[in-house]
């Protein structure tokens, strides 16, 4: 769960010839391609130009596109987010980088009260076609205020779209979709994913926002996850496969809109479900998924839906304590085994 931990996703046959690149590269190349394709696309954020971004997602772009399209901003999240909203209302397609999701709290009023609502409150006369890219997540020893998963804050708000790609291919496909979408999209990156590698197909095929992916088919139990959690879920699923347990992994990809159909369809097949999330348990994404399953697949459940989430504490700085607070493969495996035992699953 550190930056050097870079498991490679298993590529479908059709993507065997796609170049293997990192999640970071996929984002960088996609931004570049979109800026070439559409002159209305421009970037704003702290240290994204001269410094090429805190996480180097915007490397090389200032040199290529100049300071009018790669705008270094002051440390003033509310101000530059508001400026981007104004630009978007007038037809531009800003892609804002908020250095970490923790700082987006400074811009919550702009995001929640303005970006999300303008289209509705002005009777559809204006749209806000902007993207807010922002990394989050723990595991980097950045302590409590820099290690949060605040996605549920935004996923709760009608008017926003919230996506969270887990692979380099999805990072590209969802970023294309987000930039081309006429509504504000919160684009969640995860610090633990930047160095992960995977095949990324050429071309510019955008993903459908609101569509989950069954990233590993299975028959015995469904694990629903997203972003970095999907990587861990897949690792566990492949390991359990060797023990004769067929785990299906559903990667949400989009937290709003939420693809309830794909989730329920999977659970109707497997009858057992675990939600794996790196945010806190209470009122989290997992609660939403569990309720969705209860409403859509109740008669198919052989056990209660279980959630595996972070300890409900401000994330500690100390490495061992941080590790203990974050959910990992061992925690997920344990809960999966408990459900299998409770339902007399014969291995």
């Amino acid at each position, binding site marked *: 769960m550190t930056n050097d931990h870079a498991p490679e996703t298993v590529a479908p046959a059709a993507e065997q010839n796609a170049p293997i690149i990192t999640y970071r590269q996929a984002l960088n190349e996609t931004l570049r391609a979109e800026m070439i394709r559409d002159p209305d696309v421009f970037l704003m954020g702290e240290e994204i130009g001269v410094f090429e971004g805190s996480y180097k997602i915007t490397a090389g772009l200032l040199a290529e596109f100049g300071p009018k399209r790669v705008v270094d901003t002051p440390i003033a999240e509310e101000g530059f987010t508001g400026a981007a909203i104004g630009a978007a209302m007038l037809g531009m397609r800003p892609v804002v980088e908020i250095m970490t999701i923790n700082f987006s709290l400074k811009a919550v009023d702009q995001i929640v009260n303005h970006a999300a609502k303008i289209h509705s409150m002005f009777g559809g006369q204006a749209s806000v076609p902007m993207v807010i890219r922002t990394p989050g997540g723990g595991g980097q020893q950045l302590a409590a205020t820099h290690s949060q998963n605040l996605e549920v804050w935004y996923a709760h708000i009608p008017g926003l779209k919230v996506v969270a790609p887990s692979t380099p291919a999805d990072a590209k496909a969802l970023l294309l979709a987000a930039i081309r979408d006429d509504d504000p999209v919160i684009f969640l990156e995860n610090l633990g994913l930047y160095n992960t590698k995977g095949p990324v197909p050429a071309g510019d095929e955008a993903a459908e926002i609101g569509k989950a992916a069954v990233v590993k088919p299975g028959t015995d139990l469904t694990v629903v996850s997203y972003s970095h959690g999907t990587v861990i879920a897949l690792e566990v699923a492949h390991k359990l496969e060797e023990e004769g347990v067929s785990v299906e992994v559903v990667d949400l990809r989009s937290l709003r809109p939420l693809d309830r159909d794909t989730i329920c369809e999977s659970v109707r097949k497997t009858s057992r479900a675990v939600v794996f999330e790196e945010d806190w348990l209470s009122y989290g994404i997992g609660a939403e998924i569990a309720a969705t399953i209860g409403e859509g697949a109740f008669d198919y459940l*052989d056990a209660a839906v279980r959630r595996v989430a972070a300890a409900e504490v401000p994330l500690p700085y100390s490495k061992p304590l941080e590790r203990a607070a974050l959910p990992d493969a061992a925690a997920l495996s344990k809960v999966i085994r408990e459900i299998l035992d*409770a*339902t007399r699953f014969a291995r």
Partner: protein
Amino acid sequence: MAEIVMPRLSDTMEEGVLSRWLKKVGDQVHKGDVLAEIETDKATMDLESFEEGVLERLLVEAGSTVSIGTAVALVGDGSGADEPAARDDSSAPDLSSPPSVQLAQPLPAQAQTSALKPPAAPVPTAQDGRFRASPLARKVARDNGIDLATVTGTGPEGRVVRADITDAIAAARDAHAAAHPESAAHPEFPGQTRAHPTSSVGGAAPAPTPHTTEGDERIPLNNIRRITAARLTESQAVPHFSLTMVVDAEKLLAFRSQVNATLAAAGGATTGEATTGGAKISVNDLLMRAAALTIRAHPHVNSSWAGDSIVRHGRINVGFAVAIEDGLMVPVVTDADRKTLSEISTETRALAARARAGKLKPDEFSGGTFTISNLGMFGIDEFTAVINPPEAAILAVGAASPQPTLRDGQLINVPTMKITLTVDHRVLDGATAAAFLRDLTHVLEEPLRIVV
């Protein structure tokens, strides 16, 4: 629009045959109206509407077998749509009329509201009223006609999970395949003339295929025939023996005439109609009470075989076999030892009439602890009856007919009656059964003891 669902008409019912629709699409339906007839294992019962409105759609054809809880019809406001029909001018409320007039008609909105009510969930409950089962286990049980109450849960805190149900299904299949004698005993439902919810009937010993030629008619089994056949087949697995005694019926018949004469004199004007419905006490009624009183002194006879134990019943519920068109019913008079002759008489006639009409309710043919089968009215002198499992004994009664009998050295003509007790030897032994039969004979020969 509200759904009418197949109701649970008995504790163990899992499905029913909707034998006949009594309403048709477009009919106005009120609460309590009989919509259809439901054939359960042995009884035909009425399906009443809990809804007001217009019968908009029939979802199953007459003759279909339907799981409980499944929708069979839709009742709505008559518009045929989920949304209440837009009012046209003619049906617009007359604002000048008082509101109570409006309320007399069921409003479409009410039908809408009731449609939101979930159908009554046919979920069995454990004895403490709580029942742990996963939703999937409940669904699989429902789909396969497994009674959750009979399944032991192996999940957390005894929760029934799907694996428990699939085991139960496999076990039921195995049990029937082996035609295991213990499957005849169901201590939970002693004497209940009813098959197991699963296909026990089809699982009975394979029948030899009869040779058929042109002109032969193949008659499909209805529920009652099928279950009668299955029950009797189960009964053959019971190790049994029969004892016969000859009863001097002279005093019994005289007593009956006397009682009926008294009732006729007292009745008619006031109580007769009410107590006996204007009919007479039958020999069968006398036998029912005589047997019930004798059982009280012989509690061993009032037992059921339960596989690994014997259930000694506290109440004396006497069933009597009634031939009906397509099979055999055994309605039960509960607490027959505590009822008067006229109570028994009234009850047996009502039960027999309902049995012949196929209208017995499940609680009227379940819970028996002893059975009497009387073929005297057909002139049969003597026969052995087949045990009604899991009951321990059945009494077969022949006709009372004049027989030359030696009394005080004189050969005279005495009306006699042969009674035969067939006994489950696992529960009762020869001497116990013989003592019961001897005492029953004494009661019948001193009939005053039947009423005192």
